[in-house]
Protein backbone atom coordinates (compact mmCIF):
# COMPACT_ATOMS: atom_id res chain seq x y z
CA UNK A 1 0.00 0.00 0.00
CA UNK A 2 2.41 2.60 -1.26
CA UNK A 3 5.03 1.02 0.97
CA UNK A 4 8.01 -1.10 0.13
CA UNK A 5 6.93 -4.74 -0.14
CA UNK A 6 8.57 -8.14 -0.44
CA UNK A 7 8.12 -10.34 -3.49
CA UNK A 8 5.50 -12.97 -2.81
CA UNK A 9 4.96 -16.48 -4.17
CA UNK A 10 1.33 -17.56 -4.38
CA UNK A 11 -0.20 -21.01 -4.54
CA UNK A 12 -2.34 -21.38 -7.66
CA UNK A 13 -5.55 -21.36 -5.58
CA UNK A 14 -4.59 -17.88 -4.26
CA UNK A 15 -5.17 -19.02 -0.69
CA UNK A 16 -1.56 -19.51 0.45
CA UNK A 17 1.27 -17.01 0.05
CA UNK A 18 4.90 -17.05 1.04
CA UNK A 19 7.63 -14.44 1.23
CA UNK A 20 11.02 -13.97 2.84
CA UNK A 21 11.53 -11.32 5.50
CA UNK A 22 15.10 -10.03 5.44
CA UNK A 23 16.63 -8.38 8.46
CA UNK A 24 19.25 -8.52 11.19
CA UNK A 25 17.94 -11.92 12.32
CA UNK A 26 18.47 -13.36 8.86
CA UNK A 27 15.96 -14.58 6.31
CA UNK A 28 12.63 -15.67 7.77
CA UNK A 29 10.00 -17.34 5.60
CA UNK A 30 6.54 -15.90 6.28
CA UNK A 31 3.29 -17.55 5.31
CA UNK A 32 -0.10 -15.93 4.81
CA UNK A 33 -3.08 -18.28 4.57
CA UNK A 34 -6.72 -17.51 3.85
CA UNK A 35 -8.57 -20.31 5.63
CA UNK A 36 -12.08 -21.04 4.49
CA UNK A 37 -14.46 -21.03 7.46
CA UNK A 38 -18.05 -21.12 6.22
CA UNK A 39 -20.15 -19.45 3.51
CA UNK A 40 -18.08 -16.62 2.07
CA UNK A 41 -16.00 -16.16 5.24
CA UNK A 42 -12.23 -16.64 5.31
CA UNK A 43 -9.83 -16.30 8.21
CA UNK A 44 -6.53 -14.54 7.60
CA UNK A 45 -3.76 -16.52 9.30
CA UNK A 46 -0.17 -15.42 9.32
CA UNK A 47 3.07 -16.74 10.77
CA UNK A 48 6.61 -18.01 10.26
CA UNK A 49 7.61 -21.13 8.36
CA UNK A 50 10.49 -22.80 10.15
CA UNK A 51 10.68 -26.10 8.28
CA UNK A 52 8.37 -28.66 6.70
CA UNK A 53 7.42 -29.95 10.16
CA UNK A 54 7.23 -26.74 12.09
CA UNK A 55 5.11 -23.75 11.23
CA UNK A 56 5.01 -21.07 13.84
CA UNK A 57 2.08 -19.02 14.99
CA UNK A 58 2.31 -15.25 14.98
CA UNK A 59 2.58 -15.50 18.78
CA UNK A 60 6.25 -15.68 17.92
CA UNK A 61 7.50 -12.18 17.28
CA UNK A 62 10.34 -12.60 14.84
CA UNK A 63 11.29 -8.92 15.24
CA UNK A 64 13.34 -8.76 12.09
CA UNK A 65 13.22 -4.97 11.98
CA UNK A 66 10.91 -4.86 8.96
CA UNK A 67 7.41 -4.81 10.48
CA UNK A 68 6.08 -2.09 8.12
CA UNK A 69 7.37 -3.95 5.07
CA UNK A 70 5.94 -7.26 6.31
CA UNK A 71 2.51 -5.71 6.96
CA UNK A 72 2.52 -3.97 3.57
CA UNK A 73 3.31 -7.34 1.99
CA UNK A 74 0.48 -9.05 3.87
CA UNK A 75 -1.83 -6.24 2.69
CA UNK A 76 -0.81 -6.89 -0.92
CA UNK A 77 -1.94 -10.51 -0.56
CA UNK A 78 -5.39 -9.19 0.39
CA UNK A 79 -5.66 -7.43 -2.97
CA UNK A 80 -4.63 -10.61 -4.77
CA UNK A 81 -6.95 -12.80 -2.68
CA UNK A 82 -9.98 -10.60 -3.40
CA UNK A 83 -9.18 -10.51 -7.09
CA UNK A 84 -9.61 -14.29 -7.20
CA UNK A 85 -12.22 -14.78 -4.47
CA UNK A 86 -14.84 -12.18 -5.19
CA UNK A 87 -17.66 -11.44 -2.76
CA UNK A 88 -15.81 -12.89 0.21
CA UNK A 89 -15.30 -11.50 3.70
CA UNK A 90 -11.94 -11.82 5.41
CA UNK A 91 -11.79 -12.05 9.19
CA UNK A 92 -8.54 -11.06 10.92
CA UNK A 93 -7.64 -11.29 14.56
CA UNK A 94 -4.23 -10.89 16.16
CA UNK A 95 -3.14 -13.67 18.47
CA UNK A 96 -2.28 -11.22 21.26
CA UNK A 97 -3.37 -7.75 22.43
CA UNK A 98 -0.11 -6.26 21.21
CA UNK A 99 -0.63 -7.84 17.80
CA UNK A 100 -4.11 -6.34 17.58
CA UNK A 101 -2.69 -2.97 18.61
CA UNK A 102 -0.11 -3.23 15.84
CA UNK A 103 -2.76 -4.15 13.24
CA UNK A 104 -4.99 -1.29 14.42
CA UNK A 105 -2.14 1.17 14.12
CA UNK A 106 -1.33 -0.05 10.63
CA UNK A 107 -4.99 -0.02 9.50
CA UNK A 108 -5.50 3.47 10.95
CA UNK A 109 -2.39 4.75 9.22
CA UNK A 110 -3.56 3.52 5.82
CA UNK A 111 -7.27 3.99 6.41
CA UNK A 112 -7.81 6.34 3.45
CA UNK A 113 -6.18 3.92 0.98
CA UNK A 114 -7.93 0.95 2.55
CA UNK A 115 -11.39 2.49 2.38
CA UNK A 116 -10.88 3.39 -1.28
CA UNK A 117 -10.69 -0.33 -2.00
CA UNK A 118 -12.32 -2.13 0.90
CA UNK A 119 -15.05 -1.88 3.47
CA UNK A 120 -13.25 -2.28 6.78
CA UNK A 121 -15.17 -3.23 9.92
CA UNK A 122 -13.90 -3.49 13.46
CA UNK A 123 -15.28 -5.53 16.34
CA UNK A 124 -15.19 -4.53 19.98
CA UNK A 125 -17.02 -6.39 22.77
CA UNK A 126 -19.04 -8.31 20.21
CA UNK A 127 -20.22 -5.18 18.41
CA UNK A 128 -19.22 -4.82 14.77
CA UNK A 129 -19.09 -1.41 13.11
CA UNK A 130 -17.31 0.49 10.39
CA UNK A 131 -13.67 0.86 11.44
CA UNK A 132 -12.98 4.19 13.15
CA UNK A 133 -9.60 5.43 14.23
CA UNK A 134 -8.96 5.36 17.96
CA UNK A 135 -11.22 2.42 18.86
CA UNK A 136 -9.59 -0.63 20.44
CA UNK A 137 -11.00 -3.24 18.09
CA UNK A 138 -10.06 -6.83 18.80
CA UNK A 139 -10.87 -8.20 15.37
CA UNK A 140 -11.45 -6.97 11.85
CA UNK A 141 -13.57 -7.79 8.81
CA UNK A 142 -12.55 -6.82 5.30
CA UNK A 143 -14.70 -6.87 2.19
CA UNK A 144 -13.83 -5.63 -1.29
CA UNK A 145 -16.10 -2.91 -2.70
Amino acid at each position, binding site marked *: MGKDKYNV*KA*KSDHLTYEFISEGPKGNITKIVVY*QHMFDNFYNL*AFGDFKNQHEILDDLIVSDNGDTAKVLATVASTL*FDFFQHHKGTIVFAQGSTHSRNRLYRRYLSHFLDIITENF*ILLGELDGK*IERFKKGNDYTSFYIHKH
Partner: protein
Amino acid sequence: MLKVNVKDKAIANITVDKTMDEKYDGKILFPEKHQRAMEHFKGRNIVREVEEILKKEKSRSC
Protein backbone atom coordinates in the same frame (compact mmCIF):
# COMPACT_ATOMS: atom_id res chain seq x y z
CA MET B 1 -1.25 -3.96 -31.41
CA LEU B 2 0.59 -5.87 -28.73
CA LYS B 3 -1.68 -6.60 -25.84
CA VAL B 4 0.06 -5.80 -22.58
CA ASN B 5 -1.17 -7.38 -19.41
CA VAL B 6 -0.76 -4.61 -16.90
CA LYS B 7 -0.80 -6.08 -13.43
CA ASP B 8 -2.41 -4.06 -10.72
CA LYS B 9 0.31 -2.12 -8.92
CA ALA B 10 -0.93 -3.39 -5.57
CA ILE B 11 -0.20 -6.99 -6.52
CA ALA B 12 2.79 -6.49 -8.82
CA ASN B 13 4.95 -8.17 -6.18
CA ILE B 14 2.89 -11.41 -6.31
CA THR B 15 3.56 -14.32 -8.65
CA VAL B 16 1.89 -17.71 -8.81
CA ASP B 17 4.57 -20.33 -8.22
CA LYS B 18 3.76 -23.98 -8.98
CA THR B 19 6.35 -25.18 -6.44
CA MET B 20 4.06 -23.70 -3.79
CA ASP B 21 1.35 -26.19 -4.81
CA GLU B 22 3.71 -29.09 -4.15
CA LYS B 23 5.19 -27.60 -1.00
CA TYR B 24 1.84 -27.03 0.70
CA ASP B 25 -0.17 -29.80 -0.95
CA GLY B 26 -2.48 -31.43 1.61
CA LYS B 27 -0.99 -29.42 4.48
CA ILE B 28 -3.31 -27.85 7.00
CA LEU B 29 -1.61 -24.66 8.02
CA PHE B 30 -2.32 -22.90 11.32
CA PRO B 31 -5.17 -25.19 12.46
CA GLU B 32 -5.16 -23.48 15.86
CA LYS B 33 -5.92 -20.14 14.23
CA HIS B 34 -8.83 -21.63 12.33
CA GLN B 35 -10.11 -23.13 15.57
CA ARG B 36 -9.76 -19.81 17.43
CA ALA B 37 -11.68 -17.99 14.70
CA MET B 38 -14.44 -20.62 14.75
CA GLU B 39 -14.75 -20.25 18.52
CA HIS B 40 -15.03 -16.51 18.11
CA PHE B 41 -18.22 -17.03 16.09
CA LYS B 42 -19.76 -19.67 18.34
CA GLY B 43 -23.43 -19.02 19.05
CA ARG B 44 -23.62 -16.09 16.63
CA ASN B 45 -25.13 -15.69 13.22
CA ILE B 46 -22.05 -13.86 12.05
CA VAL B 47 -22.93 -14.14 8.36
CA ARG B 48 -26.17 -12.23 8.96
CA GLU B 49 -24.50 -9.74 11.34
CA VAL B 50 -21.78 -8.82 8.86
CA GLU B 51 -23.98 -8.92 5.77
CA GLU B 52 -26.39 -6.45 7.40
CA ILE B 53 -23.60 -4.03 8.27
CA LEU B 54 -22.10 -4.34 4.79
CA LYS B 55 -25.47 -3.64 3.21
CA LYS B 56 -25.77 -0.49 5.33
CA GLU B 57 -22.23 0.59 4.49
CA LYS B 58 -22.77 0.00 0.78
CA SER B 59 -25.97 2.05 0.75
CA ARG B 60 -24.16 4.88 2.60
CA SER B 61 -21.45 5.00 -0.04
CA CYS B 62 -23.97 5.11 -2.93
